[in-house]
C-alpha cells in the first residue's frame, strides 16, 4: 500500500456528515413519482463499460422504434428508442461506453453530459458480470448523481462458464438497488429486467471512507466563502462533490470547459477553492484521496461478493485474439484482412454492385426516366442541362454519388463495422503502435486511418477519439495527404491494372514513405504532446448481425446526408463554371504546372480541378484519359501519385475547418497542394531520368 495514506482520523469529519443530503430521496426504495401513471414517457439511460452488450440490451428493450442521431455538437452517434412494457412507455438512450464518469474522450464526455443534463429518470447500468471490479467503480461514481438506478449483470452465462459467481442479492443490498442477471444475446432475463426497471431506486454510497471525503468537501463549500450559491440540484439532491474533485483534478482542459456551462462558473469556482482547502489540509489532491478510498473499498467488496472457481476459457477466441496482436501471426492475419476487404469492397462493392446500379438501375431506368419527365415538364434547355446534362445534378451528381460511391462506401462500412465489432481493430492498434509513434501519434490512430480508406471525411471526424490537439491535427493532415478513400482507391486500382503489379507496389511505397516522412516532420514542427497508448482489448467475438446492420445503416445515412448534397452542389458548381467559361480558364492557368512540371497532357488539368470537388472525381477524369490512350505508363504513375496526395475533397475541407479552424485548414491545404505537385514532379523526373519501366 502506498504510504501516502493519511491516518483515518485525518479524513473523518469533525461532525457527522449530513446524511440526508448525501442520500437524497431514498424513501422506502421506491421514488414516489413512479406511482403516477399520467407522466410522459420516462427516460432510461443505458450506461456501462464498452463491450458489455449495452446495444443488445437496447435492441431487446426497444424493438423497432429506434432513431440514431449525433449528440449535439459532436460526432458521437446516439441511439434512442421507445420501449413499452408494464403498461408504460419509456424513452431509452444508449450512451457510449465509459470506464468511469471522469471522461478521457469525447464519447465518455457525452455519456457524462447526458447524465448531468438530461437527468434520466432511470439509469440502467449494464455490466459484464465477469468484471465486478469495473462495475463497482462505475457504480460508486454513479451514486453521487442521485438518480434511480438498476444494475444488470449481463453475459451471466460467460461469467458462470468461467467459474465466476457474483452474489447479486448482496450486491443489490449494498447499494439499495435492484440487480438482475441477463444473457442479452439470447434474451434471457429481459422480462425480469423490465420488472426491475419499475423498481429503480436511488443508490446509496456504500463506502464510509468515500462518504467521509465527499462530506468534507461539501462542508468546505457550504460553509465557505462562496456566498449564497445554490448548491443543490433542482430536485434537491446534493451536487456530486466527489466527482467534481475528480473532474477538476483530472486536469483535462477540454473537459473542464464544459463544467461551468453545466453548473455555473460561480459554483465551479467555489468548489475549486474548497478543493484547494482540502489539499492544504491533507497535502494531497482530494481526487487522489477519492481514488484511493474507492479502490480500497472495491477490493474489499470484490472479495466479499465474488467467488472464483476454476472455469473454462473460450480457448478459440483467446487464441485468435492473441494471434491478431502478436507480430509473427498478426501481420499475416492483417494481410488476410486486407485481402478480404479487397474482395468484398473492391471486387464485390466497386465491381458487381456498381455495375448493376450504374449501368442497369441508373443507366437504363432512372436517368432515362428522369430525362423523360424533365423533357415533358420543364422543356427549357437550361433547366434540362442543369438536371440531366453532361454536368447535370441528377445525371452526374446523383448517379455518381448514389450509383458509384454509395455501394463502395456501404460495403466498406459493413466490413469496417465487422472488424470493429469483432474486436480486431484494437489489436491492429497494438501492431501499429510503433509506426504511429514515429509520426507523433499512437496506435489508436490506426482507427481513423483505416476508416479513411473508406471515407476520409468521416475519418477526419473520427480523429476526435485521439486525446490531444496535436494528435488530432497530425491525423487530419495525414488523412488529407496520403490516405486514399474507397471510391478513389477503386479507380486507382482500375488504372493500375493496365500498368503492372510493380506499379501498385511503387505507388503504395510512395504513399507510405510520404505518410511517414510528413508525419515525422510534422511531429517535430507542431507543438504539443502525444498521449499515452492505452487501449482495451475486448474479447474476440463474432459480431451480431443486427448490431452490424444498425451501425452500417447509421454510417450510410450519415454519408447520404452529408456527402450526397455536396456531390450535387459540386456538380452544380461545375455546371456554372462550365457555363460561364471559367472552367477552361482555370484549366489554362494550371497548364504550365501540369504540362511543364508533371509532364502530363493538358487535359489532365481538368481532372485536378475536379479532384478538389471529389478526389475520386479527379481520379475518374484521369481514368478516362488513360482509357483513351492519352497517357503512357509514366504519366499514369505521375498523375496517380499527384492526385492521391493532392487536396482532399471539398467535404473533407469543410470538416477540417469545422474540426480545427479555417486558418489551420487553409494552412494544411496550402501545404498539401504544392507538396503533392512537388512529389509528382519528383516521380516524373525520377522515372524519365532512370528510364524505369513500370
Amino acid at each position: 500500500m502506498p504510504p501516502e495514506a493519511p491516518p483515518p482520523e485525518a479524513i473523518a469529519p469533525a461532525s457527522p456528515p449530513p446524511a440526508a443530503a448525501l442520500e437524497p430521496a431514498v424513501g422506502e426504495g421506491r421514488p414516489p413519482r413512479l406511482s403516477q401513471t399520467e407522466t410522459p414517457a420516462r427516460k432510461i439511460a443505458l450506461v456501462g463499460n464498452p463491450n458489455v452488450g449495452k446495444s443488445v440490451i437496447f435492441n431487446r428493450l426497444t424493438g423497432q422504434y429506434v432513431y440514431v442521431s449525433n449528440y449535439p455538437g459532436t460526432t458521437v452517434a446516439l441511439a434512442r428508442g421507445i420501449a413499452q412494457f408494464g403498461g408504460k412507455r419509456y424513452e431509452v438512450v444508449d450512451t457510449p461506453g465509459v470506464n468511469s464518469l471522469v471522461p478521457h474522450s469525447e464519447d465518455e464526455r457525452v455519456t457524462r453530459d447526458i447524465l448531468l443534463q438530461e437527468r434520466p429518470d432511470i439509469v440502467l447500468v449494464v455490466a459484464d458480470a465477469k468484471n465486478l471490479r469495473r462495475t463497482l467503480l462505475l457504480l460508486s461514481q454513479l451514486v453521487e448523481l442521485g438518480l434511480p438506478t438498476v444494475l444488470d449483470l449481463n453475459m451471466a452465462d460467460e461469467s458462470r462458464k468461467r467459474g465466476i459467481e457474483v452474489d447479486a442479492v448482496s450486491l443489490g443490498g449494498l447499494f439499495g438497488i435492484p440487480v438482475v442477471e441477463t444473457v442479452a444475446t439470447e434474451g434471457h432475463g429481459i422480462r425480469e429486467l423490465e420488472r426491475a426497471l419499475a423498481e429503480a431506486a436511488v443508490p446509496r454510497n456504500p463506502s464510509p471512507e468515500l462518504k467521509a471525503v465527499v462530506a468534507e468537501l461539501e462542508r468546505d463549500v457550504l460553509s465557505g466563502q462562496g456566498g449564497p450559491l445554490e448548491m443543490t440540484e433542482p430536485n434537491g439532491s446534493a451536487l456530486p462533490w466527489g466527482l467534481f474533485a475528480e473532474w477538476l483534478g483530472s486536469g483535462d482542459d477540454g473537459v473542464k470547459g464544459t463544467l461551468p456551462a453545466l453548473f455555473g462558473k460561480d459554483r465551479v469556482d467555489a468548489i475549486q477553492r474548497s478543493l484547494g482547502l482540502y489539499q492544504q489540509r491533507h497535502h494531497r489532491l482530494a481526487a487522489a484521496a477519492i481514488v484511493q478510498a474507492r479502490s480500497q473499498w472495491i477490493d474489499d467488496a470484490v472479495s466479499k461478493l465474488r467467488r472464483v472457481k476454476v472455469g473454462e476459457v473460450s480457448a478459440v477466441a483467446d487464441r485468435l485474439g492473441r494471434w491478431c496482436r502478436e507480430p509473427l501471426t498478426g501481420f499475416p492475419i492483417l494481410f488476410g484482412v486486407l485481402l478480404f476487404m479487397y474482395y468484398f469492397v473492391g471486387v464485390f462493392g466497386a465491381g458487381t454492385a456498381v455495375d448493376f446500379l450504374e449501368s442497369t438501375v441508373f443507366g437504363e431506368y432512372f436517368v432515362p426516366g428522369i430525362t423523360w419527365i424533365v423533357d415533358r415538364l420543364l422543356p427549357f434547355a437550361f433547366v434540362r442541362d442543369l438536371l440531366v446534362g453532361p454536368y447535370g445534378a441528377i445525371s452526374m451528381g446523383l448517379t455518381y454519388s448514389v450509383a458509384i460511391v454509395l455501394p463502395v462506401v456501404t460495403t466498406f462500412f459493413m466490413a469496417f463495422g465487422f472488424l470493429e465489432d469483432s474486436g480486431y481493430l484494437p489489436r491492429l492498434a497494438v501492431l501499429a503502435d510503433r509506426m504511429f509513434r514515429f509520426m507523433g501519434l499512437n496506435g489508436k490512430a490506426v482507427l481513423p486511418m483505416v476508416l479513411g480508406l473508406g471515407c476520409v471525411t468521416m475519418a477526419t471526424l473520427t480523429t476526435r477519439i485521439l486525446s490531444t490537439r496535436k494528435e488530432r491535427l497530425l491525423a487530419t493532415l495525414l488523412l488529407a495527404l496520403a490516405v486514399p478513400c474507397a471510391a478513389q482507391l477503386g479507380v486507382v486500382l482500375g488504372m493500375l491494372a493496365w500498368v503492372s503489379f510493380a506499379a501498385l507496389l511503387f505507388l503504395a511505397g510512395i504513399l507510405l514513405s510520404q505518410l511517414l516522412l510528413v508525419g515525422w516532420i510534422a511531429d517535430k514542427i507542431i507543438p504539443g504532446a502525444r498521449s499515452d497508448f492505452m487501449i482495451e482489448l475486448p474479447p474476440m467475438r463474432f459480431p451480431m448481425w443486427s448490431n452490424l446492420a444498425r451501425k452500417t445503416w447509421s454510417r450510410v445515412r450519415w454519408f447520404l446526408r452529408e456527402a450526397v448534397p455536396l456531390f450535387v452542389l459540386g456538380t452544380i458548381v461545375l455546371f456554372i463554371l462550365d457555363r460561364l467559361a471559367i472552367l477552361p480558364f482555370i484549366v489554362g492557368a494550371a497548364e504550365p504546372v501540369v504540362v511543364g512540371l508533371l509532364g502530363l497532357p493538358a487535359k489532365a488539368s481538368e481532372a485536378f480541378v475536379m479532384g478538389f470537388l471529389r478526389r475520386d472525381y479527379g481520379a475518374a477524369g484521369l481514368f478516362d484519359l488513360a482509357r483513351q490512350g492519352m497517357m503512357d505508363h509514366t504519366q499514369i504513375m505521375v498523375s496517380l501519385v499527384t492526385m492521391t496526395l493532392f487536396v482532399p475533397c471539398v467535404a473533407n475541407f469543410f470538416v477540417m475547418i469545422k474540426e480545427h479552424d479555417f486558418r489551420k485548414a487553409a494552412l494544411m491545404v496550402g501545404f498539401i497542394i504544392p507538396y503533392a505537385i512537388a512529389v509528382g514532379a519528383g516521380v516524373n523526373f525520377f522515372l524519365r531520368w532512370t528510364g524505369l519501366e513500370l
Partner: protein
Amino acid sequence: MKETVPTDWQEPHRPLARGLEEVLEALWTEDEKGSTRREDLARVVDVALTEELIEELKERGQVVENSDGSLQFTEVGRSRARAIIRRHRLAERLVNDILGMPMPEVEVNACEFEHLVAPGITESICTLLGHPRQCPHGRPIPQGRCCQEAQRSIEAVVVSANELHLGETARVAYVNTRNYSRLHKLSSFGFTPGVKIKLQQRSPAFVLQCEETQLAIEQALAEDIYVLREPRLEQRPVEPGEQVERLR
C-alpha cells in the same frame, strides 16, 4: 564505489545525537568523492562543524584524525555512517518514486526521515522498493542484509510491470506517476493496487491482463506500474537455459 556487506554487519541500534550523525553522513559522501579534508567537510555538512562535534566523534571511537587534519572512519564509524546513508538514500527513493515528490522536497524529507526510521522498517522499505541500488541522484545505496537475501532467492520483489517475464503473474503494488489522468485511466480499467495482473505480450506494445480486462499499453506506462512478484521460483515459467543463469 563498489562495496560488499561485511558478513557480521548489523545496523547500529542506538542512534547518535543528530549533529554527530550529520557529520558522519557528510564524511561518507565526501569519502565517496575521494576527499576527506576538513574544509570540504565543513562545506557540505548540514550543521556547524565545530571542534566539539569532532572531538565527541573521536571520543566515541567513530573517526580518527590524520596528521594532515583530515578525518577517517574507524570500523565502527564506517558501519554507522553506512546505515545513515542507507536510510537517507532509501528515503529519497521512497519519497521520489512512490510519493512522486519533486527533487528539492525529496531532499528535505529524506533528511528528516533518516534520523527517525528503525532498522526493521528500513529493511521493509528496502524490500518494498525492490532493493534499489542507487538513489535518485545516482549515488550507490549501501546494501543491507535484506538485499543479500533477496539476491539469493529472487531478484527484486517489487519491479516494473515491463520487467515481468512473459506469462508471469504479479500483484500491483502501486502506480508511480505524477500524471493524475494516467493514474485515473489505469484505475478505471481496474489496475489498482492489490489486483493480480499477468503479462501477455511485450512487443510491439505491452499487453496486461487484469481479471477479465485485457489492456494494451506502451512501455512507458508499463514502467509506471510497479508489481509485487510472487516470491517463489517454481511459480514462474522458465524458458530453456534461463534457470541455470538465475541459480548461478
